[in-house]
């Protein structure tokens, strides 16, 4: 009993919980920056650690040690609280993502809905952060962030629900298990389109470059983050990285088969059994596959980031409401029709 509680706490705090996730975000940021620099024919971080691998960590420590300014006009309590909450919320959501195992650290019936709800909470926190700093740039940035995040929330949710409808379950573990039997959802008909939409909506949700309208630095200094300095800015950066990990992790879990690797291919059953028999081996194996798949999703996002330049506000709004939302509603309808009309198409497991 005591041992169970101890192990549970260890799982939440160390591996695969908080410490592991934060370390993973530093690694992903390094991959992102290095690849981004490479696409622009630059070197990227080079001298801090092996090929600059410690750069995100150094940035974080430096920001933590810097002076922390709270503007006089700011709403002091809200201004201090939002950065901490915006780290805590994605961390909580990350505990539901299966990394070392088929199930996440936390898991219950219908947890996919809860994770999607948490992504909406992040949007609200961003609006509060911009509003509480009482700076003109921050307010405009927060208003834009609200417009953008609310618009893209609907296609994101519908895209995440498509594989759930195919697997006939709202539990993340069930969806992963379904994919182990029926193949990755990205290979099943309507959900490959949903995967594309999911990746596209991740860009505005994470405020990456073609959709970085809320922090457009040529117009708004740094958007809703303008007034945050020192520790608070460190937390905001960490929060954005955690959201990137969460988005990529959700994409991996829902569309790319979660932490399962090649052992689910037909003919490799012996390997599968060998892995499942040994808990250490299975943990390493699943984590490695999760890392590889997440890195692939991050590289796709980086590629898009390097490829496009910022859209105008009207183009951003139109993209959400005129194209992506109707498309996703159509795909949802098609999925429902198919699963009702063609019984054998999505096997029941």
């Amino acid at each position, binding site marked *: 009993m005591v041992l169970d509680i101890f192990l549970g706490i260890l799982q939440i705090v160390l591996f695969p919980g908080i410490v592991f996730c934060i370390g993973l975000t530093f690694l992903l940021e390094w991959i992102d920056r290095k690849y981004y*620099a490479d696409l622009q024919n630059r070197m990227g971080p080079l001298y801090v650690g092996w090929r600059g691998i410690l750069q995100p*960590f150094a940035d974080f420590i*430096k920001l933590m040690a*810097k*002076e922390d300014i709270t503007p006089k006009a700011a709403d002091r309590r809200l201004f201090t609280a939002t950065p901490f909450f915006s780290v805590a919320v994605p961390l909580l959501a990350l505990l539901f993502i299966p990394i070392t195992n088929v199930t996440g650290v936390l898991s219950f019936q219908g947890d996919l809905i809860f994770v999607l709800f948490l992504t909406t909470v992040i949007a609200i926190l961003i609006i509060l952060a911009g509003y509480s700093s009482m700076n003109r740039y921050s307010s405009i940035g927060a208003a834009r962030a609200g417009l953008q995040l609310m618009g893209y929330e609907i296609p994101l949710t519908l895209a995440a629900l498509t594989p759930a409808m195919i697997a006939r379950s709202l539990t993340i573990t069930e969806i992963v298990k379904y994919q182990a039997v029926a193949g990755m959802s990205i290979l099943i008909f309507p959900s490959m389109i949903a995967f594309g939409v999911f990746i596209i909506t991740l860009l505005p949700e994470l405020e990456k470059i073609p959709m970085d309208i809320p922090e457009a630095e040529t117009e708004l200094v740094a958007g809703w983050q303008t007034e945050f300095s020192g520790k608070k800015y460190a937390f905001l950066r960490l929060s954005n990285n955690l959201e990137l990990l969460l988005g990529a992790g959700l994409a991996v879990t829902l569309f790319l088969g979660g932490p399962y690797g090649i052992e689910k291919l037909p003919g490799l059953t012996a390997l599968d059994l060998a892995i499942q028999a040994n808990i250490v081996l299975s943990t390493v194996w699943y984590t490695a596959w999760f890392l590889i798949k997440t890195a692939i999703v991050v590289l796709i996002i980086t590629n898009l980031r390097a490829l496009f330049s910022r859209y105008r506000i009207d183009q951003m709004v139109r993209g959400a409401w005129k194209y992506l939302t109707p498309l996703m509603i159509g795909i949802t309808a098609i999925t429902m029709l198919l699963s009702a009309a063609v019984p054998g198409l999505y096997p029941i497991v």
Partner: protein
Amino acid sequence: MSRLVDWARRSSPWLLHFNSGSCNGCDIEILAALMPRFDLERFGALLKGSPRHADVLVCTGPVTRQQAPRLRRIYEQMPEPKFVMVVGTCGSTGGVFRGCYNAAEGIDTVIPVDVYVPGCPARPEAIALGAVKLLEKLKNAQKQARGEK
């Protein structure tokens, strides 16, 4: 712990670029220093938009009378520890603007300066060297503060 913080400070100088009335020659060269050939990001430098996020204020220009209060305010908005790097002859001494009725004679008449990069305009190599010098100076100061040689 303090060693870790010192190392982190040396490893990630984030820049804020400010033009206090220069002819724009040096500003273009600063951008060139951030571009593929020289790429200051290899030292961890990122160009930031907000003074609240930056560590190094990269200034150009002789500080015109209109810009002086703004330069001072931007400097005060930056969180400690902060450093100032001047790029260009006119920022260091007044240069071609020396003796003008409407301009001060260099950035250091308004705010304290850590590194000067001369040249009209300063070459991007020189700007990269200036950045390295700044980091070295910081390292020496940290060593002295810890009482090492």
